[in-house]
């Protein structure tokens, strides 16, 4: 691809509309052609402007409370720094740096995981508090916090909503069962999500309906007729269409 060919492709390149091999050829040329690089910068002003123009034309406005959540989130995670190249350091010093970095990254990863768990726990707890009466909140926490609790993950079985999921908690010394689902699509008018459980002895139990909020989050507290875990499968469906499912080993 020569200079004039690339020049004609720059609009499409800025839009991300070239085939991978064409984009690669343009990238190669840009490395050695300041004129085309400068021209590309002008086209990128246009593509950057598409996002700004969308915000200007759209009716959707961000909620102010999101800023607090996001700033708090980054404060819990130190920004990554660029590290000096160890090329000129003696091998031992390089090894020491690598070991130090590895241990630091591991510690950072543990901190991040902890921070994420705290945020998720806090969000779930807030939803529990707004949806359930105090006695029911107590029952939920009893199930979630017990050392005998078993947690099952319900994965999406709907290719249109691959990030939908659910979690099911039961405990061996209690009949209460807690179900939470998240990122489920909004149901249509008159449609209801239901949780269906299959016990280890093959009985099908309808555990009730789940009313999702705007995030697709819903929770259900179900009093089973026996202490758990006694189930071999759990399914959340919308008017008979399966959304998320867990199946135990047979």
């Amino acid at each position, binding site marked *: 691809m020569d200079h004039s060919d690339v020049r004609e492709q720059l609009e499409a390149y800025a839009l991300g509309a070239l085939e991978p091999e064409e984009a690669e050829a343009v990238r190669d040329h840009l490395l050695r052609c300041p004129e085309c690089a400068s021209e590309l910068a002008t086209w990128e002003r246009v593509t950057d402007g598409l996002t700004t*123009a969308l*915000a200007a034309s*759209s009716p959707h406005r961000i909620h102010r409370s999101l800023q607090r959540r*996001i*700033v708090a989130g980054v404060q819990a*995670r130190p920004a*990554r720094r660029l590290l000096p190249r160890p090329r000129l350091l003696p091998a031992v010093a390089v090894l020491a740096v690598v070991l130090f970095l590895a241990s630091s990254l591991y510690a950072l990863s543990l901190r991040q995981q902890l921070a994420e768990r705290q945020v998720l726990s806090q969000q779930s707890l807030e939803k529990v508090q707004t949806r359930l009466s105090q006695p029911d909140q107590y029952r939920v926490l009893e199930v979630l916090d017990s050392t005998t609790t078993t947690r099952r993950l319900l994965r999406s079985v709907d290719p249109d909503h691959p990030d939908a999921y659910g979690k099911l908690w039961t405990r061996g010394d209690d009949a209460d069962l807690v179900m939470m689902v998240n990122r489920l699509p909004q149901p249509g008018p008159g449609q209801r999500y239901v949780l269906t459980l299959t016990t280890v002895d093959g009985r099908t139990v309808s555990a009730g309906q789940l009313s999702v909020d705007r995030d697709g989050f819903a929770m259900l507290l179900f009093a089973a007729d026996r202490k758990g875990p006694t189930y071999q499968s759990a399914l959340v469906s919308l008017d008979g269409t399966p959304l998320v499912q867990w199946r135990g080993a047979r």
Partner: protein
Amino acid sequence: MAAGDVAAFTQLYERYAQRIYAWCVHMLGAGRAEDAVQEIFLRLWQASAQFDPARGRFVTWFYAIARHHLMHEVRKAGMRRRLEVAAEIAEVFGAPAADPEEVAGVRDDAASLARALLRIPGEQRQVLAMAYFGGLSQSQIATHLAVPLGTVKKRVRLGMGKLRAALQPPNPATGVVEPRGTVEATP
């Protein structure tokens, strides 16, 4: 912000959050937009040391991060959803729900671009939205619209040319901005 300055991050948030949010809502839906905004700003925070002003503008670099994340998410929903996203955004550009002049924080060039998007032919708006917001290549667009690849390339070139002209300052002699592209004669 590369030094981990939360105050600088907050300033960037205040400047770009509304734009990123609107983008996320149109790409992923209102239910997932806030999580996506959070993820994008977190990525910005973590990658801030990689930004090199010598290689381009900050906004271009940041939008590349945002677009990469949004494309990754929307691709999971399949081609049909990508086409829906592009069609919805093209519709917003063709019939804006908000008056760009009245939206707080919108700069002059954004309002100019929004007006230019309103003026260009619908088929040019459509291919620009399919490419940038739907993540389709020109060949894929040609396939989906059942038109020759050359037609798609022409629409891209004309549409982009008119938007670029809208961002250029008026000719000081005439006070008029002359668009580079011409009106497309045939679809």
